[in-house]
């Protein structure tokens, strides 16, 4: 649970900065920020499960 919390915090902080810096309008920023946040979490979870099954 702690790992997930840390990963979520990381995703949120990075999403805030990337969302604001990368886009021009308020709406675009919100959409992009949420998208980046979701992608960080999804990719993190997928990679976590892939690595879980590796024997080494």
């Amino acid at each position, binding site marked *: 649970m*702690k*790992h997930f919390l*840390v990963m979520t*915090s*990381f995703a949120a*902080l*990075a999403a*805030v*900065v*990337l969302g*604001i*810096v990368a886009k*021009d309008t308020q709406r675009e920023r919100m959409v992009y920020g949420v998208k980046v946040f979701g992608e960080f979490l999804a990719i993190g979870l997928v990679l976590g499960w892939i690595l879980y099954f590796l024997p080494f």
Partner: protein
Amino acid sequence: MSSVEKRQVEEAAPTQAWLMGAAGWLVPGVGHLLQGKWVRALLLGGAVWVCFIAGLWMGGHLFIVKSGEAGSSMLYQVPPMIANLGTGLLYLICWFFDTGFSDDPVNAARATYEYGNTFLLVAGLLNYLCMLDAFDISAGRKS
């Protein structure tokens, strides 16, 4: 005005833009704050500060090139040090007080050690983006 002249006028960044960029690098968020972008300063600067403090709190390690290390080992420290340096004054204060630089095995054994390293590295890299954003706003390339 010809298109070449027009492009030169557009590309020339004023001194103020460089100062805003430098201020944004030195203290995360200040580059935007000085331009009256309060919300942006709070969000961008806040994210970098939180990222950095959380990294230190989790036992992360700050990188520095030490002269005593052998050739390639010394070179490996350069890229992460550049990333860490992105936090400007935060990094310099830690360097001054020798906080976060020691290779402490107790810290390295903590479950959050690698997370801490990542947070510290990313804090610097995010601040480079914030610095560029402050520069672009001041140069009139962004609103």
